[in-house]
């Protein structure tokens, strides 16, 4: 009997593969772009600073080892090295920070076709720990995001970037909160 491929159940299986209840941050989005394109974009980790929040840069030291720098809102920078720990080309990438890093982080991302040509399902888990504790609070405080929201926020930004070529923002727009804003009339 011919083996049939069922993208829907494969996608469900992939999701189940890394749905641990104790995983601190996981999310899935459907992106209106081909699976291979998204995978290739993500696999070149240097691209990630184009959309990831607070990520200043990633440098690929080798094909499997990369150097990550995040910039906190107070201007402080935190850096670590990560390596690819598992990989199925076009389907998934897993990574982990090298032992002894200031930041202990690991994650995996999965790519599967959505049914009936409705794009690609991308699911992400991210774990982010700072050995010794206090720096976690610093990061939460200065990025303004709780670690649980990291996958959610960054996947949404990945989707926006790959579908529209930009990440939506209002940073830099005018408002009445500007330092030099001058009230002309404030009759209430």
């Amino acid at each position: 009997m011919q083996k049939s491929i069922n993208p829907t159940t494969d996608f469900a299986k992939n999701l189940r593969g890394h749905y641990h209840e104790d995983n601190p941050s996981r999310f899935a989005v459907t992106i209106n772009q081909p699976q291979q394109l998204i995978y290739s974009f993500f696999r070149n980790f240097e691209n990630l600073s184009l959309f990831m929040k607070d990520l200043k840069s990633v440098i690929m030291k080798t094909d499997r080892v990369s150097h990550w720098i995040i910039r906190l809102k107070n201007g402080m920078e935190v850096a670590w090295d990560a390596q690819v720990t598992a990989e199925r080309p076009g389907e998934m990438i897993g990574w982990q920070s090298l032992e002894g890093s200031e930041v202990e982080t690991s994650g995996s991302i999965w790519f599967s076709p959505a049914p009936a040509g409705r794009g690609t399902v991308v699911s992400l888990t991210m774990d982010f720990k700072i050995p010794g504790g206090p720096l976690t609070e610093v990061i939460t405080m200065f990025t303004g995001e709780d670690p649980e929201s990291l996958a959610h926020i960054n996947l949404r930004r990945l989707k926006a970037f790959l579908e529209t070529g930009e990440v939506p923002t209002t940073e830099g727009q005018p408002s009445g909160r500007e330092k030099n804003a001058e009230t002309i009339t404030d009759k209430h």
Partner: protein
Amino acid sequence: MKALTWEGKQKVAVKRVSDPTIINPQDAIVKVTTSAICGSDLHLYDGYIPTMEKGDILGHETMGEVVATGSSVKKLKVGDKIVIPFDIACGQCHFCKEEEYAACDNSNPNAIIGDKLYGHSGAAAFGYSHMFGGYAGGQAEFIRVPYADTNSLIIPKGIDDEKVLFLSDIFPTGYMAAENCGIRRGDTIAIWGAGPVGQMAIRSAFLLGADRVIAIDHFEGRLKMAEQAGAETINFEKCDHLLEEIKFRTGGMGPDACIDGVGLEAHGNTFPAVLDRVKAAVSLATDRPNALRQCIQACKKGGTVSVPGVYGGFLDKFPFGAAFGKGLTLKMGQTHTQKYMKPLLDLILSDKIDPSFVISHRIKIEDGPNAYEMFNNKKDECIKVVIKM
């Protein structure tokens, strides 16, 4: 530039702030020529919409002239006269491709709020709280328009601003509300709220082939305006038994569809309406759905209740049993403005409708704070305020 800013509950200021600049490659900067104050701005004014921040620039009914375009803008050119839809859509996501622009997946930088509050976030909007993206609005001399090719309708030269300004919101909103009624020959449509959206819905219902339209409000000026469009009217304050009256006037059947053009701040003098005001005041419920309750109660069996009025939170005493028992269809949501702007412009250009009839006041931006107060108190039968820059 000068801009109207939200400074707290029932506080609006005119402030001088910096001019907007291109931030993303698909942005355009528009010199605003005409802007309007919307009934839904009053929900902000009265503090009914959470996540407003002091200093936010108001306004989502805007038109003007393109003065700068980002590197990825293809269609728009400097000098183009455009109307800007109130909702912001990316034009590329699944929902935009389905012409469900108000459900855009990418335009809202704060989508995580809507994701958590509603399950899924809707599109961003101009000048309508940080939950809707926190984008600066158009009651200002200039505005930044993201995804400018999608969020614009180019207007032919020589057309008066006032004729086309309402393509930004209330005309498409009234039209979609009427379209959602699935109008067939012989249908009677009842419309709660004869404000600007209600007025557009009345005319749209007739354009879509309704036999009769019944408009319900308590402002005589608005009811007169409804009559001018051919609607029958009921002043609910002078009517002790509104639902019986509607039933009687529709031969016992009830209207084929009912439109709630009022939304979350419905006025009303029934006991549940008074109770709503008390509960909203103590934050037990956020919305006052009196008009919606009446729509459901009045509607014909198997009919449609169409809701263009804005709701934000939880409803109390929602007559779900009546809706179920009569097999009603409920259709609702923010308007997919981008979908309707071009066909409705064609209706305007072919003289089928001139939406400028709703304008009651024309002001300068400096008069903005007064205008909000007046609009909110409906002083002087204010129906629609337009700001001429």
